[in-house]
Structure formats: structure tokens, C-alpha cells
């Protein structure tokens, strides 16, 4: 029982990353009708926002310590971060420690900016082009973005730890009298994802802006005819979708050390999620994200693996095939979207 609860938790946790990425993808697809293969790259750029902030906070000046030597036998240069020099080791140290949460603030303007430039500079010209062209150009963009990151940050994973205070484990089962040990940061990540998803939904549901966007998603032409400048709003939505992907990336860095190809690792998976959820359906994307996360976790349980060897390698795809064959347009897809 504990084990099952633990795997459900795990699944929700994995699912929150899938759901966040899929949500952004669906927002872009639903509003702009563009299949964005560079969305994984946005996730990756978000993660590197955290890395960058960590590096900025760790910018150091060097002092030579004659008592120690470096690996070549020269006097050791000791590095002291400016932040620590300015605010004292205590405060400075904790600022550095909180780099990842701070990176949220750092990442939002950057991601919206990246999204804006991408949409105005490139994607805009592809609205009328076939989906295949959109896939190709955004795929090319994804390669370029990840290679640029690789050029500056290298190919190895880069450790970006969570603040010490959030680094331990907590017992989630204490309330119900069970022993469910779970890392604090993962719980934070889950609630963060729920918050973002809730935020996006209420934004679309309760604001005029959101209403226009939803109407535009349903029937772009008609809304355009009403004299509403739908394009400008869609540009903003692209920025928001980029920010969602970016924040998902920022918060993900303590869970797994980011590397330049993490976007590609998530890309295929997030497309499977979006399609299983149903193209263009926001609730579908979120639902499918959590569903696949949970199923993936269950499939990695030893009991299930011993029943069907290798099931954890293919579970996502098996589920995708079953769902698509029984529900032609995914869980919550609309008819006629991306079917030709």
C-alpha cells in the first residue's frame, strides 16, 4: 500500500513536468495553430536561466592564497563571490543558496522576451504554412538553441541544488498514519505546477483577455471579424506559454541537473502527452500529463516489471496506442483538429 501511494506521488510529480510542458504546447497550438517543436528547447532555456543566475550570483574575485597550491603547484587562487563580499558571508551565502527560487523572477521576463522574439521574428511567418514546415523550422530552431547553450555551458549536466531548507525529505504519510518519505522539493514542484496550471486556467476563464483568447481558439476567423486584434493577444499568449515552459524548467533543475539536450528528451514525450490528451485541449493536456506520469511510475514497480519484462521501457507508447485506438482524438480532443 505504501509502495502504491509512493508511486502515485511519483507519478503526479513526473506528471507535473509533463503537464506543464504539454500545457504550453497546447496553448501555442490552440491559439496560433503552430506545432512548436522548439517547446522542449524553451523548457531547457528556462532551466539554464537558473544555471545562469547561479553563475551570476557566484561571480567571484580571486585572491591569491600563498599557503595553498593548485594542481600545478602554483599558489592557489581563492574565489570569493561578490555577493558574499557585499552582503557578508551569511546573507550572501543564503542568496546563493536560494538561486533556484530566485531564478523564477529572473526567468519570467527572459522567457516572455524569448517567446516574444520567437513569435514576432519567426513563428509569425509560418501561420499560413503547412504543419510540416512549422515542424521543420521549429525543429531547426530547437537544434540551434540547444547548440548555442552547449557552446556556452558544455554538454555535461550542471548541478543546481535547491536551497538547503528545501533539500531534505518530509513524511507525507504522517497525517494518515503511514510512512511516506518524500523529498521536499518534489512536493514543492508539484504544488508549483498545480499553481501555474490553476493560474493559467483562471486567467483564461475569468479575464476578458482570456475570454477573447478562448474564443479565438475556438473560432479564429469570427473573433477576427469582430474587430478584435487577436494577433497581438496571441503573441502575448506565446510569451506566456514560453514562460510556463521556462518556469517548469527552472523549478526542474534541482530534481535533475540540466544539460543542453534535456529539451529534446522531453520533446517527444510531451508531444505524446499532448496528442493523447487531444490536440488543442488544455484540460486534456493536463490530464494526459498526470495520467502518463502515474502509469509510468506504476510500470517501473518491480512487481509489474517481473510480470511483463521491459514494460517500463514502453509503457508511455503502449498507453498512447491504446488510447488513440479507442478514442480517435485522444482523451479530450476536438474533431477536425490536425486530422489532415
Amino acid at each position, binding site marked *: 500500500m505504501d509502495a502504491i501511494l509512493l508511486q502515485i506521488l511519483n507519478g503526479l510529480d513526473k506528471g507535473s513536468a509533463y503537464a506543464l510542458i504539454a500545457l504550453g504546447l497546447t496553448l501555442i497550438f490552440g491559439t496560433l495553430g503552430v506545432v512548436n517543436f522548439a517547446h522542449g528547447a524553451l523548457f531547457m532555456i528556462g532551466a539554464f536561466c537558473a544555471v545562469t543566475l547561479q553563475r551570476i550570483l557566484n561571480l567571484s574575485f580571486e585572491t591569491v592564497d600563498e599557503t595553498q597550491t593548485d594542481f600545478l603547484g602554483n599558489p592557489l587562487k581563492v574565489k570569493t563571490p561578490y555577493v558574499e563580499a557585499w552582503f557578508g558571508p551569511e546573507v550572501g551565502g543564503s542568496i546563493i543558496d536560494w538561486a533556484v527560487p530566485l531564478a523564477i523572477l529572473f526567468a519570467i521576463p527572459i522567457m516572455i522576451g524569448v517567446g516574444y522574439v520567437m513569435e514576432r521574428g519567426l513563428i509569425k511567418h509560418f501561420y499560413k504554412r503547412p504543419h510540416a*514546415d512549422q515542424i*521543420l*523550422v521549429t525543429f*531547426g530552431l530547437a*537544434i540551434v538553441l540547444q547548440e548555442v547553450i552547449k557552446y556556452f555551458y558544455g554538454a555535461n549536466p550542471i548541478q543546481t541544488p535547491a536551497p538547503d531548507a528545501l533539500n531534505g525529505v518530509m513524511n507525507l504519510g504522517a497525517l494518515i498514519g503511514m510512512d511516506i518519505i518524500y523529498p521536499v522539493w518534489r512536493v514543492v514542484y508539484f504544488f508549483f505546477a498545480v499553481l501555474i496550471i490553476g493560474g493559467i486556467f483562471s486567467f483564461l476563464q475569468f479575464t476578458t483577455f482570456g475570454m477573447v483568447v478562448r474564443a479565438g481558439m475556438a473560432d479564429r476567423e469570427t473573433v477576427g471579424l469582430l474587430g478584435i486584434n487577436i494577433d497581438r493577444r496571441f503573441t502575448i499568449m506565446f510569451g506566456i506559454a514560453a514562460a510556463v515552459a521556462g518556469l517548469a524548467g527552472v523549478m526542474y533543475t534541482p530534481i535533475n541537473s540540466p544539460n543542453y539536450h534535456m529539451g529534446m528528451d522531453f520533446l*517527444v514525450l510531451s508531444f*505524446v502527452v499532448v496528442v493523447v490528451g487531444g490536440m488543442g485541449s488544455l484540460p486534456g493536456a493536463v490530464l494526459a500529463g498526470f495520467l502518463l506520469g502515474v502509469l509510468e511510475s506504476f510500470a517501473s514497480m518491480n512487481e509489474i516489471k517481473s510480470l511483463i519484462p521491459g514494460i517500463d521501457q*514502453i509503457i508511455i507508447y503502449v498507453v498512447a*496506442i491504446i488510447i488513440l485506438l479507442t478514442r*480517435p482524438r485522444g482523451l479530450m480532443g476536438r474533431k477536425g483538429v490536425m486530422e489532415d
Partner: protein
Amino acid sequence: MFGLDKKDTSMLIIVACLTLFAPFILNPFPTDSAMAQFNAGYPDLMQRFVIFGIFAIGFNILFGLTGYLSFGHAAFLGAGSYSAVWMFKLVGMNVIPAILLSVIVAGLFALLIGFVSLRRSGIYFSILTLAFAQMSFNLAYSVLTPITNGETGLQLTLDDPRILGVSATADGSIPVTSLFGLEMRSTFEMAIGPWAFQFNVGYYLCALILLAAFYLSIRIFRSPFGMMLRAVKSNQQRMNYTGLNTRPYTLAAFVISGMYAGLAGGLMASMDPLAGAERMQWTASGEVVLMTILGGAGTLIGPVLGAGFIKYFENIFSKINDNVLHSWFSFMPDGMEDALVFIVHPFIGKGWHLTLGILFMLVVIFLPGGLVEGGQRIKGWLSRRKAKDSNTSGETNPAE
């Protein structure tokens, strides 16, 4: 000729000349010049050009004609490769049975996957094919290791039975693939002045098969079947209400293109008897999509151009290193040389992906019809210029 009209015949002849004279065309630079780095006329790369050309031609029969975007075609390539290598392991080193088996196995595999996947269309179809291919890849990499040899890839060993051949040659080596005794790896070399050209048996076998595959694809494009496939792409609804059952048409196209992929896989294994699971990964499926669209989907020659373009970058640009750069720019003053090397450095060697990504984007942005459109534009521009020339001369003549 060959049941083709004049235009298609001349295209076939052009392709035939290009492939048969490829060892010359691809080695334009003298062996010792700094530009020799850009020579692509060595057997392995030439083989890859034509093999991936075959793969892309087949993919284009499905995608270019019916519009069904399969993201799992690499699975058929992989299945073909594995079958061919198993043939070499169990039966013998002749390439003919191996290639035949790989085409058949890939065809059956495609029939199975196509039958299920074609129940959906659009992106749902794409994701179904992707899911099947990724499953094949993941299983081949892990659980199916007894059949696929997992990470390492299926290789020949000295203990293979090879019932119609020998397990090991007299000098204790693994025998090499051959066509009735003609070894695939044997190469004729010819030197003309500072140029060197290599003529490889394996390459010419691949090239002949490419020509056959290309010819077949022209026939399919021009046939009623090809027309039906284009009609499927254009309007399925009208197809159905015109008394035509679209499913068998798309399935036939899927199987045919799967068999092309199997043929490519079989040839790949025949040139180099190894089959790795990476051949089935989604990136490999994506690569053939890129080749086809980049070259020009739905055109006859486009996929072959796209295949050449990508393989050229992968194999030539990745091999340029700073040393080579310095030797190119060595005629310049030191500071300038270093500056140039510094500028070019991110785009070569380990940066070849970056260059490829940028070129993809440029082609897609400015040439929506792919490289073929680029060619047409140049042709159009030239003929306009010619027309203008003759016009102006026509105008000036009376004045004189």
C-alpha cells in the same frame, strides 16, 4: 523510354549519370589541396548518399503523395538491417538473400504497423507510428538483446554458423559480404594528376539499386495508383464519396515505403554488416522526414537531394577541426587568421549540428518547396535573364 515520358526519362538519365560518375563529381578537389576536406567521394559516404536516398525516396511515396507523416519509418530500416545481418550470420555472405529478406521483413512489419496506425489520420497517425518505432527501439536496446545484441549492435562473429558459407576464412577472419564472390568492399583506385578517385563495388551495387528504386518511384508517381494517393492527400472525403476505399491505398503506400526503408536497411547492412538499435530511434525517423521536406516533399528528386545534403554535413563538417581551419587561413596574417578561426570555430567540428540547424531554418524560411524549389528558382532566373538578353538584343537590332 522505359515507359516514361520525355521529361521523366531525361531526369532518370541525369540521375543515372550523377550516380555513376559520383566518384568524380564528389571529388572535385585535388587530394592534397586544402579543399580536399570537402571531397565526399569515398566509398562509405557515397554508399550512405545512395542508401539514404533510397530511404527518402520510399518515404516520399508515403508522405509526398498521401500526406501521411510517419514518424516511425526508421523502425523499418532497423528491421531490414537486423534481418540482413541475421542472414549473414546464419546463411552466408551473399547480399542478395539478405536484401530480399530485409525487404520482406520490413514489408510485413510495415503491414502490421500500418494496419493499426492508418486507422487514424493527421497528427494522431504520426504519434501512433512514433510510438511503434520508439517501442521497437527501446525493446531492441534492452529486452530484445538476444536478437538485436542491444547497445553494441548485431555484429558478425567467427562462430556464426553460416550454413552456405564459412564461419571464418582461411586466415582466421570473418568473411566479407559479397555478390557471388564479388566483394562489396573492393575498391578500384584511379589517379589522374593530383586527383584520386575511388570506385567501390558496394557503391555501384547500391547505385544500381537506387536507380531501380528511383525508376520504380517515377512509375508509381505517374500511375493511376500514384494519382489516387495524391487524391487521398487532397480530399479524403471526396475519395470516399467517389466509391474509392482510401484505407487499402494508404496501406499499400505505407507498405511500399516500408519496403523501401527495409531495402535501405538491408543495403546498409550489406555494405557494413552491423545493425544497431539507434537506427530505429525517433531521431533517425525524424532525419528522413527532414531529408524529404528539405529536398522537396512530393517531388521526385527532392528526397535524394535532401538525403545528400544532410549526410554531407554529418560526415564532412563534423570532421573539420581547428587544425584544418588554421591550414586554410594560414596565408593570412596571424591576427586575422586567429580571428577567422575564432569566428568559424563554433560552426565546424563539434558545432556541425549548429550549422545544420541554421541551414534547415534558412531553407525552410526562404525555400518552402525545399531544395528543388531553389533549383527551380535558379533555373527560372537564368531563363528570365536569357529571355531578357534576347529581348534586349531583339530591341537593339532594328535600331542598328
